[in-house]
C-alpha cells in the first residue's frame, strides 16, 4: 500500500469542489462568459456606442456584420451586451473582493480585541443592518452623483456587513484557542496575531460567503441600472440593456432576451459555484 502524501485541509476542500460536477461546469461556463465579454468586442470593427445608421433595428442575422442585430439607434446588440457584461462582472468581482476584505478585517479586529471596542463596532454594524439595503445603495448613489465608481462605492459600503459578522464570530472562538494564547505569551503584538493567526483561519468561511456576495453585487448593479439610477446610457450595462429590452419587448423580444439570458446564466453559475463551495467547506450542511 502506498502512503498518501499529507494534505492540507484547504487542498482537500478544493478537491471536493472539483468532484462536484455542477459547480465545475459552472466554473467553465462562467470563465467562457468572462472571456467572451473581455475579448469578444475586439473581434468587431466598431464599439457598442457606434451607431450604424444603415442598419437601425436590424434583426438577428448570424452571417451579417451584426450577428444579433442592432437596437433602435443602430448600435450592435451583441457588442453592447458584451461591453455591458464587462462592467457588470468587474463591479461584481471587485465589489465582492473589496467588501470581503473590509468585512474580514473589521470582523477579525472586533472579534479578537473584544470588550468595549467589540461592543461599539458591533453596535454600528447592527444599526447599519437595520437599514433597508437597496434604499441605502440608492441614497449613496445619489450622494456620489451617479456613475460607475459611485455605484461601486455604494454597493461595497452596504455589503461588507455580513462577512464582518461571520468573521467576528469565528475570530471570537479563535481568540480563546491555545495557539493564539501561545502567540500572545510569546510577545506577538495584536495586529500581528490578527494578521498571521486569525485572518488565515477565517479563510474558508470567507470563501463561502464571498462567493455568495458576487451574485448579490451583480444583481444590485443591474437592479439599479434597470431603474435608471445606476449606470446610465450610452454606457451599457446588463441592467440598462434589460430595461431598454423591456420597453421594446412587444415588438422585438431579442433586445430583452440576449442580455437577460446572459445575466441569468452568470447568476446561475455563481450560485452553483457558491453551493459547491459551501458543500465542500461545510459538510454538515447536507
Amino acid at each position: 500500500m502506498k502512503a498518501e502524501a499529507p494534505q492540507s485541509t484547504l487542498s482537500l476542500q478544493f478537491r471536493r469542489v472539483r468532484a462536484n460536477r455542477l459547480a465545475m461546469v459552472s466554473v467553465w461556463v462562467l470563465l467562457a462568459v468572462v472571456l467572451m465579454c473581455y475579448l469578444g468586442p475586439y473581434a468587431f470593427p466598431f464599439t457598442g456606442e457606434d451607431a450604424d445608421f444603415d442598419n437601425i433595428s436590424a434583426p438577428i442575422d448570424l452571417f451579417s456584420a451584426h450577428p444579433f442585430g442592432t437596437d433602435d439607434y443602430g448600435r450592435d446588440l451583441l457588442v453592447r451586451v458584451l461591453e455591458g457584461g464587462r462592467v457588470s462582472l468587474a463591479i461584481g468581482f471587485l465589489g465582492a473582493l473589496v467588501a470581503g476584505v473590509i468585512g474580514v478585517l473589521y470582523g477579525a479586529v472586533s472579534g479578537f480585541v473584544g470588550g468595549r471596542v467589540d461592543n461599539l463596532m458591533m453596535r454600528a454594524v447592527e444599526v447599519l443592518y437595520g437599514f433597508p439595503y437597496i434604499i441605502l445603495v440608492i441614497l449613496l448613489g445619489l450622494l456620489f452623483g451617479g456613475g460607475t465608481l459611485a455605484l461601486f462605492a455604494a454597493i461595497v459600503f452596504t455589503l461588507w456587513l455580513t462577512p464582518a459578522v461571520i468573521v467576528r464570530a469565528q475570530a471570537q472562538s479563535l481568540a480563546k484557542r491555545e495557539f493564539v494564547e501561545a502567540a500572545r505569551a510569546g510577545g506577538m503584538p495584536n495586529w500581528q496575531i490578527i494578521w498571521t493567526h486569525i485572518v488565515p483561519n477565517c479563510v474558508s468561511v470567507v470563501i463561502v460567503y464571498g462567493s455568495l456576495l458576487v451574485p448579490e453585487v451583480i444583481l444590485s448593479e443591474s437592479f439599479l441600472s434597470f431603474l435608471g439610477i445606476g449606470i446610465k446610457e450610452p454606457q451599457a450595462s446588463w441592467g440598462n440593456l434589460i430595461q431598454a429590452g423591456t420597453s421594446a419587448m412587444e415588438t422585438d423580444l431579442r433586445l430583452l432576451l440576449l442580455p437577460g439570458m446572459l445575466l441569468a446564466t452568470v447568476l446561475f453559475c455563481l450560485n452553483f459555484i457558491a453551493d459547491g463551495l459551501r458543500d465542500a467547506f461545510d459538510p454538515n450542511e447536507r
Partner: protein
Amino acid sequence: MFPFVAKRIWSGFLTLAALATLTFFIMRLAPGGPFSRNRKISPEVQANIEAAFHLDEPVWQQFGRYIWGIVRGDLGPSTRFRDYSVNDLIASGLPYSLTIGFWAILVASLVGIGLGLAGALRRNGWTDYAAGTVGVIGIAVPIFIIGPLAQLYFSVHLGWFPVGGMNDGWRSLVLPVLVLALPNIAYISRLTRSSLIETMRENHVRTSRAKGIGPWLVMVRHVMTGAMLPVVAYLGPAAAALITGSILIETVFALPGIGRFFVDAALNRDYPLVMGITLVYGGFLILFNLLTDLLRGWMDPRVRHEG
C-alpha cells in the same frame, strides 16, 4: 422576557433615528437640487422658492425642523408634485404596496414551506427535484426579467391578466404578487428543506419515533417546532427582499405604490419624498426585525439570552 423586548425596541428606535439622520445629511450633501434645472429662473424667484422650502436656513436649523416634523408625523412638502405633501403621497401609495406585500409574503410562506416539506419528506423524489428547480430559478433569475416575460406571456399573449395598473380588481394583483413571491418561495423552500432534514436526524426525534409515536405526530410536534426556527428567522431578511422587490414590481407593472414614487423621487431629486419613503421602509424593516426577534424569543428561550 421583558428586558429582552425592551432592548429590542430600544435598538430599533436607535436604528430609525440613525436612519433619519443619515438620510437627511446624505440628501443635503448630494449634488444638484430639486430646483437646479436647465431653465434659467430669476434670482428673486429662486430666492422665493428656497425660502418657501426653508433651503436658505443653516443646515442645523433645517435638520431640527425636519426631525421636529417627523416627531409630529409631518414629512414636509414634496418638491416635485407641487401642492402635495409627502404625507399625502405616501398615504395614496402605501395601501397598494401593503396589499401586494401582504399577499406576496403569504404566498411565499405557504408555498415555500409546502415545497420544502415535500422535498424533505421525499428526498430525491420528483417533488424534491421540482422544488429544487423552482428554488434555483427563483434565486438566480432576477424578477426584472421574470416580470416582463410574465407580462408578455400571460397578459399580451394569453390576455388573462392586465399588463399593469390597478384597475382590474384582483386580476391586476395576480402577476405582481406571484413574481414578487418567487424569490422568497425559493429561499423559504430551501431553508425549510435543509432545516427539516437536519432536525429529522436529531436524537430527540429518533427517541420519539422509537417510543412508537406516529410519524405525523412526530413531524408536527417534534420536527416542525425545531425546524421552523431558521425559517422564522428569515422573516426579517424576507421583508427586506420584499421592499427591494416591490420597488421593481411597481415599476415593471406600473402600480401606483410608494416604490414607484421612490424611484421617481430619486431620479428627480425630490429629497423630502425620498427621505419620507426611506423612513417608511426603514420603519417597516425595523418592525419586521423586531417581530422576528420576538417570535424567535418566544419559540426558543435560548435566543432571549443571546444578549
